[in-house]
């Protein structure tokens, strides 16, 4: 109550108003400070020490405190502070180590009051006690803090920081006896003014110097610190162990930090190097400044809120020799320009997506992220807080995790091992491969194999007669109708590199939808507490605590899950892959399937589809030449290859062999082969890869088996390896392989008997052995040429 009345009186008396304005100073400023009634500001620097009055729309120079023909270093100020109780009292910290007080009530031109030269090094900071008139604290580079009683000639107590330079000292706003000091080595100490022998508490706040600290004006325990490590941290001092409660990462070392009056979570910072702007942060939103003032052309050295109960006026001094008054309403709001959506891939293929809540919720009954693998979508919603000034505080984060199983390529390995590519009649190969695919729950692939068999099997081999295709198809469409159902769902999955199996997809959809609502409720319940849990970017996706409720939902969901009809419709909406139409097209040619397939979409009962098949049966002409299907098969192969299943493409290519080869240009074939072989080798399926190489008809591929194949030959005489040429030994200078027939060196093909080790030119030996059974070398061995 008391505070309130003071506010009104304070505000009432001076009735702060104004606009964004600035004035030129003669020299760079190092620090600024305002008097209690917010009507005047003092600017101090190496070559400047002036008082300006703040008028409606301009600064007016009131007083120049820098007097004398050749001012001494005592005027070279590192810091200045205006007493908040006594309006005539100022204190400055001089770079030469002096602490000076100034009495504006003095009649003479020189207002210097007291001079303390107790510090050995530059004094970095002076601070008046917020309520005591005569108590002044200073912190210096020499590692000492001194407390002065202005009625005495020298300091009343000295606090030692163990020769670590003191960068800032601040009296607590609420605790009469406490002050905080920040140090160059990264520590912050809390002292009791009555106990100069030892600090009350010490903690390491930053790596590198802590340039500044500021007590929260309202909250007793909060201390904000800023350091060279570019961080602003807020500490809770009320507990036994000092706890870091907020951390803001800026882009440059933090020179000053000041809490914004009347706003619990806001603070202003400016930097020491490179960055010239002043930022006002909402500490709960550490990633983007709440407001920015961009007027200065050089680093800002001093910031101060004009009135301790008015959050709308900020004063700042800078190295560019200007003094600014910033109106809060004129600040730029970076958040308005920020991209409200974010998208990021995780290391293991997880996808995180954040967007404004409005964007998400508007279509959350649809899918927030179509096409993504929404195994476990996680949503965090935040109810907009009315007291906030941020335009859109809330956004939703969805994390799309990939299933570990779906990532695994077991199916690939199994398929590669089990497929038969040659050695049996074509139809059997197809059937076998179809079976393999079916067992691995890849119905689409399986069906493809079956169809291939039908398409390319020699019609003559099929028993002629009108009922045969029917009886044949009698089994097929049945299987098909069942499979197609899965296939539809499976297709989407496969288009994502076959990550997940068909069934599991269904409940995801459902799950996603329900989760949205679930979490919505959850959040609304829990969110009442504090704004702290607001943003859970980053950790969310791996943090078990965050996930557990979700997983719980997941389980219950699965238990009572029934395959909903809508899932299919949704599926069709997103299915933009070419496979469906293509198959339809393909099936049209093969008419019975077409109807079956089309029926499939509308009705789910196999019987009905069957009946449709029989109706369309007359369309069937078994005499279609195999080449008729080639364009379709070609398209199909390209489709498989494009969606990543190069295995299928190559397998079909090999099995079909001559039937299709000419349809596909060599370069594409080669490309597929190399990709597949590469994949196989990565999975260390050497045998399969070798088989594929062998079976391939591309010259570029078959020669793969011959590259980097080295035969090491040893000389038959001296048993040393022969390095240079294959036929002459460097060491014993003997020709290693002499033809037993013509006694010349064999430079080409050399054939020899494994029994007696004699041999020679292939042609010669062959001829010799036609006529004689004995070895041409005359060793008496009965050689055999096969």
């Amino acid at each position: 109550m008391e505070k309130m009345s003071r506010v009104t009186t304070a505000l009432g008396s001076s009735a702060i108003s104004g606009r964004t304005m600035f004035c030129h100073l003669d020299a760079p400023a190092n620090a600024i400070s305002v008097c209690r009634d917010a009507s005047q500001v003092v600017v101090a620097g190496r070559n400047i020490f002036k008082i300006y009055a703040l008028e409606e729309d301009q600064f007016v120079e009131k007083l120049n405190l820098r007097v004398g023909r050749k001012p001494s270093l005592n005027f070279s100020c590192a810091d200045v502070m205006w007493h908040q109780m006594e309006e005539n009292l100022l204190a400055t910290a001089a770079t030469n180590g002096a602490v000076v007080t100034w009495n504006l009530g003095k009649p003479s031109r020189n207002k210097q009051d007291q001079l303390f030269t107790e510090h050995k090094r530059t004094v970095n900071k002076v601070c008046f006690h917020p309520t005591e008139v005569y108590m002044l604290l200073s912190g210096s580079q020499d590692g000492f803090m001194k407390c002065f009683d202005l009625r005495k000639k020298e300091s009343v107590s000295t606090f030692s920081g163990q020769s670590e330079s003191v960068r800032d000292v601040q009296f607590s706003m609420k605790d009469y006896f406490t002050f905080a000091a920040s140090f160059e080595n990264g520590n912050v100490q809390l002292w009791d003014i009555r106990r100069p022998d030892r600090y009350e508490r010490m903690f390491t706040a930053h790596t590198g110097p802590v340039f500044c600290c500021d007590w929260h004006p309202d909250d007793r325990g909060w201390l904000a610190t800023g350091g060279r490590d570019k961080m602003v941290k807020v500490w809770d001092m009320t507990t036994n162990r000092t706890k870091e409660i907020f951390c803001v990462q800026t882009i440059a070392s933090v020179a000053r930090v000041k809490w914004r009056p009347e706003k619990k979570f806001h603070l202003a910072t400016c930097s020491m190097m490179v960055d010239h702007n002043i930022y006002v942060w909402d500490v709960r939103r550490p990633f983007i400044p709440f407001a920015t003032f961009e007027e200065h052309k050089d680093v800002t050295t001093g910031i101060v809120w004009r009135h301790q109960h008015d959050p709308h006026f900020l004063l700042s001094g800078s190295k560019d020799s200007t003094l600014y008054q910033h109106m809060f309403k004129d600040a730029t709001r970076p958040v308005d320009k920020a991209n409200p959506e974010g998208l990021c891939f995780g290391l293991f293929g997880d996808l995180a997506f954040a967007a404004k809540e409005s964007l998400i919720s508007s279509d959350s009954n649809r899918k927030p992220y179509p096409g993504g693998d929404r195994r476990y979508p996680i949503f965090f919603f935040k109810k907009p807080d009315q007291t906030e000034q941020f335009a859109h505080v809330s956004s939703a984060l969805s994390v799309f995790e990939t299933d570990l199983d779906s990532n695994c390529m077991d199916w690939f390995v199994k398929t590669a091992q089990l497929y038969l590519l040659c050695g049996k009649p074509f139809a059997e190969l197809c059937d076998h491969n179809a079976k393999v695919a079916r067992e691995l729950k890849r119905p689409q692939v399986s069906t493809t194999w079956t169809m291939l068999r039908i398409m390319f099997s020699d019609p003559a081999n099929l028993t002629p007669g009108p009922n045969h295709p029917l009886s044949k198809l009698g089994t097929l469409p049945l299987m098909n109708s069942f499979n197609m159902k899965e296939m539809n769902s499976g297709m989407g999955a496969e288009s994502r590199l076959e990550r997940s199996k068909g069934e599991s997809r269904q409940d995801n959809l459902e799950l996603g939808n329900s989760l949205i609502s679930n979490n919505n409720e959850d959040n609304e319940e829990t969110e009442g507490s504090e704004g702290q849990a607001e943003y859970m970017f980053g950790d969310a996706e791996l943090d078990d605590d965050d996930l557990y409720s979700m997983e719980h939902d997941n389980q219950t969901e699965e238990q009572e899950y029934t395959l909903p009809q809508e899932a299919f419709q949704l599926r069709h909406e997103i299915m933009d892959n070419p496979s469906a139409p293509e198959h339809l097209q393909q099936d049209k040619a093969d008419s019975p399937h077409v109807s079956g397939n089309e029926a499939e979409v509308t009705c789910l009962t196999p019987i009905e589809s069957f009946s449709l098949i029989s109706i369309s049966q007359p369309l069937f002409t078994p005499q279609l030449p195999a080449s008729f299907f080639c364009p379709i098969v070609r398209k199909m192969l390209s489709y498989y290859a494009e969606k990543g299943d190069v295995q299928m493409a190559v397998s079909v290519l090999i099995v079909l062999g001559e039937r299709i080869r000419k349809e596909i240009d060599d370069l594409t074939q080669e490309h597929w082969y190399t990709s597949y072989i590469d994949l196989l080798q990565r999975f260390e399926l050497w045998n399969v890869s070798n088989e594929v190489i062998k079976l391939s008809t591309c010259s570029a591929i078959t020669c793969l088996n011959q590259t980097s194949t080295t035969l090491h030959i040893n000389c038959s005489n001296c048993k040393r390896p022969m390095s240079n040429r294959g036929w002459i030994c460097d060491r014993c200078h003997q020709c290693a392989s002499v033809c037993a027939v013509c006694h010349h060196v064999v430079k080409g093909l050399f054939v020899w008997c494994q029994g007696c080790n004699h041999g020679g030119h292939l042609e010669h030996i062959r001829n010799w052995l036609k006529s004689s059974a004995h070895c041409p070398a005359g060793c008496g061995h009965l050689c055999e040429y096969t």
Partner: protein
Amino acid sequence: MEVQDRESLGRWEGLGSRDAISRTEAMENIRQDVMRRVETIRPITTLAPASKSPLKSDLNDILAHLLMLTKRCPFDDVKEQCVRILQGVQDLGVRIPRPLGNGPSRFIPEKEILEVSKVDARTQSIFEDAFAALGRLDNISLVMGFHPQYLGSFLRTQHYLLQMDGPLSLHYRHYIGIMAAARHQCSYLVNLHVNDFLQVGGDPKWLDGLDEAPQKLQQLGELNKILAHRPWLLTKEHIECLLKAEEHSWSLAELIHAVVLLTHYHSLASFTFGCGITTEIHCNGGHTFRPPSLSQYCVCDIANGNGHSIHHNDSLGNHELCGEVEVLMERMKQLQECDDEEASQEEMATRFEREKTESMLVVTAEDEECVPSRDISRHFEDPSYGYKDFSRRGEHVPTFRVQDYSWEDHGFSLVNRLYPDVGQMLDEKFQMAYNLTYNTMATHKDVDTSMLRRAIWNYIHCMFGIRYDDYDYGEINQLLDRSFKIYIKTMVCSPEKTTKRMYESFWRQFQHSEKVHVNLLLMEARMQAELLYALRAITRYMT
């Protein structure tokens, strides 16, 4: 050339291992290699002993390296093995090299330096690390071994600057090192880095002179010159000129890297001369194959200060000057006590100016114009450009106020922003050098030397026009006597003129380790001063 280098590099690599077995293995390989070479060479040598066949010079390089190892390797087993190999080679009738000069420093007796590593386990381990990283243990490190804490920090920084990820390519880094060292005609550093430069695949043509190097590096010549001799003249226009040169322009990150390298090697050159570092044994001029002739032996030993006669002289000198330390300590105590007698502000300002001007008048003892040897001067242009005192010829330079631009607040942030981690390392190194103390002075223990260290540091900065508002420059006059000032001035401003006499004439009663400590202070203070000017210019350019 390149292939050989790589091959030889591989040869020595195994020796750096901490594992004794793999060292033995590597040693055995080297032994076989050497023997094989000796075998192939022997007939030729007997035929024409004077012939300089490539094979022969190759072998000589290896032998020189082995010789270096016998003296410098931190591992005793390797040392012994090397001695044995050399012995074996000599027994085969091949001439083996012997070191020229004794020990890593011309000023400090070898014995004293080498004792250090024996005593201190920490030094030994740092030496081993350095040896493992570089395959050698240079003389600088050996001398710095007096102060292991600092040495660790120094080597870490240097390794990061030269070997780790950074904006500049490896051969650029070494070339910049050569440029910087050449400014001070420091043949030691130049030789060292010419080898490294070639090893990382640098173009040997560049070594013919700056004109042969790419345009980009040529432009750096100006910055190099100014930084080395008159850093206060550096303006943002110089920086702009480098950054906006179309296709030859530097990026900010590259420039920072280059600046750090330049300042590092300028100051390292100071250290090299200040401690009288001798040529590495395996480098040219560090060894000879000529048999020792009597006269040469004497000359060399006397010049190296390892002869007995010099020691004798020293003791005489000591006798005269005993009490010098006590006087110094007494003064420090006085200064600490009587700080009531406060000088007026104007007095303080004039004291700084006086010290500044006075430092100009400290004549660098032998002021004869020494013409730089051609070999090194080709790496830079304008050899006549040297340290010129401020106030001469009336050119007025505004004083640099450290309170307005300090390393801790400003320089660090800038460096760390553009070349991450280096700021941290330099910061550590500066602090280490500034705060290093053993609380001893000569024979006295428990002395607070902070005042003396600060005086030295600030005096050097004063020579560069950098002023600390909170320092009373009168203290310098009290604490640093004239011969010490001469030494500092010479070392910082024209290190190539440092002589053994200067080294010996200051602080006669102090130990060598303490003089090395002073050198470290000088080196770091100089580096910081240059860095401050360069970084301030860059900051001004950026704003």
